[in-house]
């Protein structure tokens, strides 16, 4: 269980999963196709992960593999993983995958995540050190949250190293005050 207050974990759990209800549930308005506010057995509903997960534990629903791990994505990752737009599939592709993998019957999600991350990792780090700014911003739009953190970590550690070597003011305006007057850097 991740930290209760972890923002990223909370948002990861908001990803939608399609489930099939094994038990009927009354008095809830979660099935948009239903006219009454109840859910019939066998109806297919898109639920956020936090709800789907708990209901699955109580055998009330069965979970399908979410759309972001479908065959098309797999083929694209196999072809050239570095160019796949994972953010549009899910900004928390890896974290979500790790949560989903033990719950669905599909055993191939784990290896898929691993191979995708391994091959993209190298690309992210190389780009972080070499890419010029305008080119980089285009590349950034296809990275997931995790990869963006990596990218920024790579850049900031390089900047910190340069600063350490050159010397410079060690006292700075508190970053919380915003970037308003951050000029000659």
């Amino acid at each position, binding site marked *: 269980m991740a930290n209760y207050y972890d923002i990223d974990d909370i948002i990861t759990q908001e990803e939608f999963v399609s489930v099939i209800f094994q038990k009927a549930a009354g008095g809830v308005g*979660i099935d948009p196709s239903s006219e009454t506010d109840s859910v019939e057995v066998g109806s297919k509903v898109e639920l*956020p992960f936090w709800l789907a997960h708990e209901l699955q534990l*109580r055998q009330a629903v069965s979970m399908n593999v979410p759309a972001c791990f479908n065959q098309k994505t797999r083929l694209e990752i196999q072809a050239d993983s570095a160019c796949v737009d994972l953010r549009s599939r899910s900004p928390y592709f890896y974290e979500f995958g790790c949560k989903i993998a033990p719950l669905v019957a599909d055993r191939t999600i784990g290896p898929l995540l691993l191979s995708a991350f391994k091959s993209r990792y190298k690309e992210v780090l190389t780009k972080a050190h070499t890419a010029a700014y305008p080119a980089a911003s285009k590349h950034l739009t296809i990275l997931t949250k995790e990869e963006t953190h990596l990218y920024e970590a790579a850049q900031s550690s390089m900047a910190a190293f340069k600063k350490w070597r050159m010397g410079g003011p060690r006292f700075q305006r*508190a970053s919380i005050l915003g970037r308003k007057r951050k000029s000659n850097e």
Partner: protein
Amino acid sequence: MYGRKACQLVKELASAEKGQLTPCNSDLFDQVAAECSQHHLELQSLIRKIQEEGLDVQTTRNADHYGALIHHLSLVRNKRCLVAYVYNRAEIIRSLIWKVGPVLPPEIQEKLNHTEEDYFKKLSTALQAYMSRLDLDLTVDMVPPKDPYIQVRVLDDIGVVLSDDKTTNFARHSMHFLKRTDAEQFISRGLMEELTG
């Protein structure tokens, strides 16, 4: 969908730059709290319905049970989002005292709501009390000093300041050679910058 507003609230935190404070969205916060009360009412009415049918609430697994379960889970989820929102903001506010000092500049002040201001005030009083008991200022020398004196340039009109036994006029663009501990609070508030040779 249940819990969507609560997640919006948390996303607001996530989309802010790291360590930056966003204005407190008490409007959305109240809406989520209202949603919680709504879930609570529906949960109660479903439980009552089960009881009226003469069934045991503990063991019944009918449609009403699962309905009640969904309301319960949504309630717990909303709670987690709300608590996380408050907690993460409180963490940032707590760090302010070390970064900016006990007096908040107005642009940050306006982002806090009433209880958060109160929290900050109490926190700074507690810290002051502790420091005066130790007889040690803990908020200075956040970066290990190399020299007790530093050269600074004044970026904004600060005016005449009394430090130790003499008064100094910190006019804009003037340069001074100061004790590091005196300059520190001005630099962290963005009123001076350190000059390096």
